[in-house]
Each structure stands twice: as structure tokens, then as C-alpha cells.
């Protein structure tokens, strides 16, 4: 029987949750790398037994771990993320120039077809690539060297490159998103980049046509329709139908359009999920009710999904990398909270149940669908 493996990164270690295709009985393994912040754990689509993990610590810096047996054992690989050449400056919070400084790896994106190739999005914003399974990393410097980069400014969480999307239909096309610079697209495997932010409107940016400066929280794509992207921005849920050339707001009837994660149903490109959060100053669900919202129309029309989720006294957050979908016949949806719960739905969001309740704050959730 097929099954799933849910990879969870938390403030204090990584956890691997496994179940068969019924997704009602779970085995929990962990904590792996106990005591370290695990920003992201993701498996290779080309070899599901190969998993990469970003392990970091304010004390001891960045480590990258790799498993070649589905998370049972791990080995450290390379952790030298030196920027290409002499890094320039970006804007600091007070508007003064600030040198680029590596802090941590926020996101690891394995290649769709080569288990040895993996991309890393880092803070301060930069994109790195390894072609030897994570042993050595080289920056793809064109993004950081974009002419707009000296004007980029960090969001409250740091200037992180947190989203990397690889276009399965057009080799060489990829997207990256940076808080608080915006979304960028490359059509030549990262050798050059263009901002793709037209149509975004951000409070505090008076120029409605500003190319950069937008606090994009997360991008999502369905592999069958890669020209359509969904975006959860600081405020606003957005959609593009032309690979980012222009965006339109699809927040519709959401109770609030602030949030972090966004994802797409594995088999229905127009079915989208978000978790509305009260506001940028109140990072918890409105009215203390944890509700996932689903649109079956590609945005604009949203329905709350509440069955099995706490509907009172719930004041957790769901971070940008903490939602994922499996690709079983009945699509499963997963998300983790800053309260340490990991919820799963085996019926596309209609009903939910916690897999675990008391992990450290969840930073990321990914899922692998196993044969």
C-alpha cells in the first residue's frame, strides 16, 4: 500500500511522521538534531530516500544534513555558503547601506529530476546551488546582483529568500521570493532574473508600479499549470496567469487576507488553501478559531474548513513553509503550527485531525508520497 512521509522542521529539531495510505495511524520519529532550529526538510522528487535538512543555531551557525535512507540516518554535508565575490550592500532597517551577511538557509529545493542537485534560499537573500548532493555550494549570484538589490530591505524576520519554485514544464524557468523584496523569475536556470511584481499593492509603498519592496510570504504552483502562480503576500492573496507578468488579487471573501502559507491541491489546479491570520500585528487566527480556507475556483471564493480544528482559544500561527499536500488519490493536506501541532486531512481539507500535538514550534512541513 502506498504511504506518506511528513517531514517537519521545528525550533528544536526535526521529526519524521509516517503513515500508510489511510493516513490515520502515524509513527513519529525524532527529534533529529535535537536542540537545533530546523528551518526546512525536503525530499528529492527524483529519489525519495534522499532528504535534505537545514539545521541552524544562533550559537553555532549553519549545518546541512542529508539522509539517503528516508530519514533513518543522516550525515552532515557542506555548509559553506560564501557569497560569490565581494558582497555589496542592501538597505538596513534604518535605510542605511548594510553589507550582505549570511545568516541561515531558509529553504531547500531539490531538483525535480536529479537527486544530486539542490537549491538553497538563504538569509541575507541569496540563491545557492549544489550539484553534488549538498557537499559543495555555489551561489547563483545574478539574483543578488540584480540592479534593484541595493534597495532591498529586510522584513521583520530578516531578508530571507524563502520560496524556490522550479517549473516542471519549462527547463531553466524558476521563481524565487524574498521578504521584503518580492518575487523574481529566471528563464535561464538562474543566470539572470527579472522582478515579477506588477499588480502587487503594498501599504507603505506609494508607487503602485514599484518593481520591488513587496513582502511576499509564499508562492505556490500546480505542476500541471506552471504559468499560474498563487501568492500569499503580507496582506493580499494574489494570482498570476502569465508566469508573474501581472498579478490580480483573489482574496475575495476571506475574513482577513493576511497570512503566510499557500498551497495547491495535488490534482485540482484551481483548488487553493490558505490559513488567514488576524493581522501583521496579531499573528494568530481571527477570533481564536483555526480555520483553513479553501477555494475551488482559483481564488476569490473561499470556504472555511473547520472540522477537527480548534474553534476556540486558539492563538497559534502557521508559518510560510509549514503547509504541504500529498499526491495520493484523495489529496492529503498537512500543516504545522507555532504551538507544535501538526494537522492532517486525508480528504482534501474536509476533516482534520492532529498527527502530533506537542512538538516545538513548527517551522516547516513537507510531505513525500511513497509508492
Amino acid at each position, binding site marked *: 500500500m502506498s504511504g506518506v512521509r511528513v517531514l517537519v522542521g521545528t525550533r528544536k529539531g526535526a521529526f519524521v511522521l509516517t503513515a500508510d495510505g489511510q493516513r490515520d495511524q502515524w509513527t513519529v520519529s525524532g527529534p533529529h*538534531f535535537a*536542540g*537545533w532550529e530546523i528551518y526546512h526538510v525536503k525530499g528529492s522528487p527524483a529519489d525519495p530516500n534522499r532528504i535534505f535538512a537545514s539545521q541552524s543555531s544562533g*550559537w*553555532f*551557525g549553519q*549545518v546541512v544534513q542529508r539522509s539517503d535512507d528516508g530519514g533513518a540516518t543522516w550525515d*552532515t554535508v557542506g*555548509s559553506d555558503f560564501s557569497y560569490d565575490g565581494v558582497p555589496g550592500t542592501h538597505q538596513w532597517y534604518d535605510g542605511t547601506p548594510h553589507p550582505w551577511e549570511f545568516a541561515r538557509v531558509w529553504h531547500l529545493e531539490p531538483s525535480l529530476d536529479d537527486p544530486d542537485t539542490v537549491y538553497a534560499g538563504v538569509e541575507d537573500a541569496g540563491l545557492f546551488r549544489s550539484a553534488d548532493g549538498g557537499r559543495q555550494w555555489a551561489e547563483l549570484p545574478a539574483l543578488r546582483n540584480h540592479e534593484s538589490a541595493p534597495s532591498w530591505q529586510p522584513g521583520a524576520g530578516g531578508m530571507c529568500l524563502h520560496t524556490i519554485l522550479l517549473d516542471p514544464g519549462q527547463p531553466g524557468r524558476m521563481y524565487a521570493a524574498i521578504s521584503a523584496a518580492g518575487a523574481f523569475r529566471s528563464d535561464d536556470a538562474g543566470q539572470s532574473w527579472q522582478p515579477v511584481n506588477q499588480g502587487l499593492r503594498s501599504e507603505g509603498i506609494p508607487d503602485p508600479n514599484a518593481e520591488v519592496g513587496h513582502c511576499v510570504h509564499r508562492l505556490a504552483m500546480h505542476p500541471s499549470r506552471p504559468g499560474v502562480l498563487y501568492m500569499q503576500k503580507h496582506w493580499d492573496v494574489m494570482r498570476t496567469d502569465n508566469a508573474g507578468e501581472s498579478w490580480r488579487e483573489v482574496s475575495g471573501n476571506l475574513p482577513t487576507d493576511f497570512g503566510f502559507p499557500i498551497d495547491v491541491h495535488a490534482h485540482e489546479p484551481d483548488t487553493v488553501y490558505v490559513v488567514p491570520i488576524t493581522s501583521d500585528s496579531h499573528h494568530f487566527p481571527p477570533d481564536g478559531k483555526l480555520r483553513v480556507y479553501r477555494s475551488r475556483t482559483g481564488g476569490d471564493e473561499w470556504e472555511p474548513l473547520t472540522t477537527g480544528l480548534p474553534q476556540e482559544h486558539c492563538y497559534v500561527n502557521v508559518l510560510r513553509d509549514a503547509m504541504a499536500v500529498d499526491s495520493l488519490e484523495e489529496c492529503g493536506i498537512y500543516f504545522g503550527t507555532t504551538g507544535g501541532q501538526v494537522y492532517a486531512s486525508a480528504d482534501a481539507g474536509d476533516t482534520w485531525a492532529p498527527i502530533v500535538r506537542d512538538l516545538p514550534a513548527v517551522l516547516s512541513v513537507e510531505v513525500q508520497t511513497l509508492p
Partner: protein
Amino acid sequence: MIRVVLPAHLRTLARISGEVELPVAGPVTQRSVLDALEGRYPVLRGTIRDRDNGRRRPMVRFFACETDLSHEPPDAPLPEAVTTGAEPYLIVGAMAGG
């Protein structure tokens, strides 16, 4: 032999338990001890000192003989008790409150 004590997280990372004993050629300084340590355990590169400029990471401290050596020049000789192995060289993660 120079005795080095690592914080728990770095012992786990390097897959060691207890103290590390290191032969150090030439003058025994913080730099030469850390060079020898990273030579034996490459996974520790970048976790104690900045990989590029060699500076101590901000929340890592160095002690020996009940003395904080964190701000000593990296090429200053370590105390004789460390060079003879009577006392360990301590690498410590700064304490976190809360």
C-alpha cells in the same frame, strides 16, 4: 596532548563523547588548537569561528583555568596548564535565558 571540551551540540555534531585530545604542533594558541580541532573534525568548521575571517562566533566563548579567554588574541600562548594537559580548553555556548 591538548584537552578540549566542546558544548553538547557540537559533540553531537562531531559524533564524539567526552573530551577531545589533540596533538598540537608548534606554539599552543587558541588558533592552533582550533585549527587542529577543525582539521580532525571538519564538520566543526564554521560552528566555532567564522569560516571566512576566523573570528569567534558571537555566542561562543573560550575558557581555561577559570579564565575567560574569549577576547584574548588568537595567537597568544595558552596557559601552561593547558599546554601540559593538566587543564582543558573549554569551548562554551553562551547561556540563554528564559
